[in-house]
């Protein structure tokens, strides 16, 4: 069962665990993993996941004025 926790809640919990600058922290994790010659698919996936959520938050609806 995937459970009742919303994806937005999961994203917030991940951001909280990663600290003030989640993307920079993930970049640090990716660099550490590459240095250790380990795979980075999960870390890079999390980075995209959080970045996409940030982009969709910034997208504001276009306001059309009637003339």
């Amino acid at each position, binding site marked *: 069962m995937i459970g009742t926790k919303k994806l937005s809640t999961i994203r917030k*919990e991940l951001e909280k665990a990663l600290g003030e600058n989640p993307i920079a922290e993930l970049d640090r994790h990716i660099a550490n993993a590459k240095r250790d010659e380990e795979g980075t698919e*999960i870390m890079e996936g999390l980075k995209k996941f959080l970045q996409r959520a940030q982009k969709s938050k910034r997208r504001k609806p276009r306001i059309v004025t009637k003339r």
Partner: protein
Amino acid sequence: MAESLGFVGNVEYRHVYSQRSGGAQYGRGSTEKDDLLIVYAEAFERDADREDFSLEAMIAHERGHQILARHPRIAKCVTGIPAASEEILASVLGAILCNRESDRLTLYGKAVCDLLVCGQDSESAERQIQTLLETLEAML
């Protein structure tokens, strides 16, 4: 959709809200052909919400549970594991099966988050999920 993700067995829709499944639930039958995937009403509400899991991600997660129960190699390795661990593995397996990158990413996020709840720090959780991903991909 379930068939395209490799699910074997019966798929039923129940026009009710489940208590805690989150939208879908796998039921193990006496044989694989008797296995059951139940999809509940909230699955479609969640699918329509941009801030929540898609239907495909939910079904892929349940197919992950079927693989844990039925795959000849994987099932042997996971006998007796705690339910929380099984949920993490189902998310990783579901991610492997998803066609869309966006669905894969959501299931990665869920798997890592579930490890964070167990007390892991984020970097350790990410590395453990990475190891699980590579191991399960090799076994499939």
